[in-house]
């Protein structure tokens, strides 16, 4: 059987791989959406935080002998803490100003962080092996899927849905949403809004770091890994609608799949297809697929 001129096995294989890269887009764009939705900050250093997550895994293993599973928890915690420091010492002063200031500041932080890692580790990247338990491949009938890739999809979907639940369905999430709508009012009820905002940014940073640890065994851990990815992730957020949580998860996965299929039918365009879609979406629905016009 053939689909669009290619064997259905190859087609299904590419679809699955698209889902894997979509998982990364989903988890990264989710972090961006949470930060933008609740803080109104365009967090340009998201890629650098993702890179630091991957490096935390590498440093944990090579210097401290801490394994992958521990770093999957500790890495995001450490990077989240760094995020909290960034928010407390710098970002907090910018909330009243135009978006542009936040964007410039976070872009500067990116250059700084990348520069530090580049001068210590160089750009060729560091090797990181997948954990023992996830070595080998699953036979899906139409392809051999490395177990690790399957784990990426499961882990990122779990985290994405957990985040959505936390923000949309729990009391803490309700405070957060209320805090962004009307901070003064929420504060009047005795809730510490600035602390909540710090928590939110740290949480977004931790999400990025989680994606970084997940990516470490798949791609080379390199200081540039974040900036290679972040532009695409921003496009995903714009397509999904800035600040829409469920929207960014769904568009992340969807665009991963579309990009994967482009790699088969017209590989030369695989780096641009996301931006073409972004342009079309912006013309037809300026607020994004899931965004609300303000």
């Amino acid at each position, binding site marked *: 059987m053939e689909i669009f001129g290619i064997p259905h096995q190859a087609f299904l294989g590419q679809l699955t791989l698209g889902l*894997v890269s979509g998982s990364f887009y989903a988890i990264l764009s989710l972090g961006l959406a949470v930060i933008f939705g609740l803080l109104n900050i365009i967090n340009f250093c998201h890629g650098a935080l993702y890179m630091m997550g991957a490096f935390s895994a590498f440093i944990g293993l090579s210097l401290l002998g801490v394994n992958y599973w521990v770093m999957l928890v500790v890495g995001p915690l450490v990077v989240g803490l760094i995020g909290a420091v960034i928010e407390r010492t710098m970002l907090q002063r910018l909330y009243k100003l135009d978006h542009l200031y936040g964007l410039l500041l976070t872009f500067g932080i990116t250059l700084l962080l990348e520069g530090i890692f580049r001068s210590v580790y160089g750009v*060729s990247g560091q090797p990181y092996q*997948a954990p023992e338990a996830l070595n080998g491949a699953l036979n899906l009938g139409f*392809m051999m899927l*490395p177990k690790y890739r399957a784990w990426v999809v499961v882990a990122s979907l779990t985290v994405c849905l957990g985040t959505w639940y936390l923000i949309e369905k729990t009391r803490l999430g309700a405070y957060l949403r209320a805090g962004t709508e009307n901070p003064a009012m929420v504060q009047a009820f005795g809730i510490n809004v600035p602390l909540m905002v710090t928590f939110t940014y740290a949480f977004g940073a931790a999400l990025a770091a989680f994606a970084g640890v997940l990516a470490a065994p798949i791609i*080379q851990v390199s200081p540039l890994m974040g900036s290679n990815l972040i532009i695409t992730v921003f496009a995903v957020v714009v397509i999904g609608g800035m600040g829409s949580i469920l929207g960014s998860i769904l568009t992340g996965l969807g665009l991963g799949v579309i990009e994967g299929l482009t790699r088969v039918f017209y590989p030369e365009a*695989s780096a641009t297809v996301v931006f073409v879609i972004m342009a079309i979406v912006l013309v037809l629905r300026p607020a994004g697929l899931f965004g609300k016009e303000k």
Partner: protein
Amino acid sequence: MKTRSKLKFKMSAAAAVLTLAGFTSGALNAQSKISGDVVKIGVLTDMSGLYADLGGTGSVLAANMAVEDFAKDRMVLGKKIEIVSADHQNKADVASTKAREWYDRDGVDMITDLLNSSVGLAVAKVTAEKKKVSINTGAASTRLTNEECNPNSIHYTYDTYALANGTGKAVVKQGGKSWFFLTADYAFGHSLESDTANVVKANGGEVKGAVRHPLNAADFSSFLLQAQSSKAQIVGLANAGGDTINAIKAANEFGLTKTQALAGLLVFITDIHALGLPATQNMYVTEAWYWDLNEQTRAWSRRFFEKHKKMPTMIHAGTYSAVLQYLKATQAAGTDDAAAVIAQMKKTKMSDMFMQNGTLRDDGRVVHDMYLLQVKKQSESKAPWDYYHVRQKIDAAEAFQPLALSRCPAVKK
């Protein structure tokens, strides 16, 4: 009225002084034959992007080592030698703007490194226009000495023809007859793919297909799946740097290496270092130079390592050699005039720790021996950076495209 005539007087006096000054400095220049009283060499390289470990600050260090080895006091013909450097960010437009600025405003006489083919081609054009010298030690495209050759630009370390000729031939001879290419979608990748495909076909192999991936592709899994379904024996990686690393990593993960073999067509020692030997063992690699070739290369590399904390790539060694040979030629020619220096290089056999009896041809190609290397197994590697078996020395006469086949108009046929 009085003030006006005073002003007039001042102006004419100033004009006279300026003319006189211009005249004398012109006379001085004619005497020393070194433009601007300094020999300025620019290292234009990727300082921060995906190729920064191949050239970058290492190339600047190598250039400085060459100056010191040429003369302890860093002088040639009684004038100072100066090294300047800049980041071209892998962008052809940034590179040619910088090159223009260097040649026009800063008095740079020679630009080297120039890794990345699109950068190399752009700067070669500017160099010809400004009648200066560019010695490309970093880029790979054979277009530099074919369609786009010019009398002011030299291609030094390696090129896609030499790589294809080394690795392609060796792999086909070992029985790797059917090939599929994973190609970086720009000048260099296309050039490497077509050169290798020609070698494969000429030696009785066949090419089953190719997939072109964008530069800096993070995820190679779907390209590898296509390579896997082609059922070719050999998957040729016509890419470089981070792209090669990620492709090899994914190939191991997807088990492609169990049924098919990888042929890295442009692999640097830093890539092997980043991937580790288990992922790369037994792979054939063609390079112009390896740090562990002989006593001379080892001694130089140790000096380099002390400062850079990484072993040199062939681009670093090439940059060292290019700067050294350029200075020697300047000294011998008695001037830094571009045409005179290049003419001098053409009539000398060039030897140093990078090459023995290298020659500069009319198409701008520097011809020297190349090496076919094979990556060691973990158990065979005795020390860090001990990565290659030297399998074959490819003689200078066979390593590069024969001059008779060059499409460079400057070559008389």
